[in-house]
């Protein structure tokens, strides 16, 4: 069967059955979270923008915040037949694009807070985080394929790595 390919935009969240390729472009401070169950052959991805939905106004996309995206993504996995204890996770992103010496601005460190919150939410649900490539100051394009369950990470000027 041909591998379906999905490109996820900001705050998107998607779970699909293998064979599938999940892609998200140019993650800066955002997080690309991948979860998968190799036995049930399902995989999901979320493009998380911010750590915390408290103070959020109205009915926003669940994929936007780490605290809402992680449980929603796992729920969706279970609905598609994944078994919770088999689900594994990988994350990439959470860079700090600009560093201003001396000037403290909360939003510049949002990447690190995204990583922290995503990791904490996975732990709370008992999901094993088996690989991550986070932080630094470079953007990442990520591609997850169920053909080998690997997360391919492209960084400008540094080439491609796999986790």
């Amino acid at each position, binding site marked *: 069967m041909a591998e379906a390919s999905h490109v996820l935009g*900001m705050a998107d969240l998607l779970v699909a059955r293998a064979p599938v390729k999940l892609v998200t472009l140019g993650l800066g401070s955002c997080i690309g979270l991948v979860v998968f169950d190799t036995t049930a052959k399902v995989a999901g991805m979320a493009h998380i923008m911010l750590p915390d939905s408290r103070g959020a106004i109205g009915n926003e996309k669940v994929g936007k915040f780490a605290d809402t995206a992680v449980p929603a993504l796992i729920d969706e996995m279970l609905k598609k037949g994944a078994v919770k204890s088999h689900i594994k996770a990988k994350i990439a992103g959470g860079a700090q*694009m*600009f*560093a201003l*010496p001396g000037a403290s601005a909360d*939003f510049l460190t949002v990447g690190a807070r995204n990583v922290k919150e995503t990791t904490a939410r996975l732990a709370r649900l008992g999901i094993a985080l088996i690989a991550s490539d986070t932080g630094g100051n470079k*953007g*990442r394009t990520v591609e997850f394929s169920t053909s080998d369950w690997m997360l391919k990470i492209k960084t400008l*000027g540094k080439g491609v790595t796999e986790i």
Partner: protein
Amino acid sequence: MIDLGSFSSLQLDAIREVGNIGTGNAATALSKLLSCMINMDVPKAELVSIYELAEHYGDPGREVAAVFVRSLGGFGCSLIFVQQEEDAQLMVDLLLKQQFGDYLPENLPQEMRDSALTEVGNIILSSFLNAINLLIGTQHQISVPAVAHDMLSSILDVVASIFGQMGEMALMINTQLRVEGAGLANISGSIILVPDPDALEMLLRKLRVL
């Protein structure tokens, strides 16, 4: 806090005028620095979905160079000067050729080229900000500039995360500057102004549109 969803066209026009005044000043500064004629577009003030910021400005994976500064006190905001990577490098060549004459800028270390690029961005953004503060009668301090070379969408994450904390729309003031001159390739760049949430209210009051 301002609800961007109920922004009126009068308010957007007032914001655009602020962009116009800022851009005029920035263009003058860049023109002096490069001894070239600079053309500017009429700025746009628009509300853009935070989920489609990068797509709104082009290919999300496009390689860009961006200079970033924060304004502290007075009118609090973030300013970004974004260029296609090739344009940024052409602009650096232009500046360094003036400074070093025959010395080939390509031979300069990357840090030195980056430093030149950062300084050009800093001058453009500071001039932009000075004009706005003069207009609304506030005093401000400007942070040291930071530079990044990366994908457009990664750079605009900064903007998305600021506006994302208060809703799903971003208010973008966007304007283009183009370096013109005989024998020069077209070099252009965009200034993006991102007001802090509380500063936006203050700005609208000063402009008497709130």
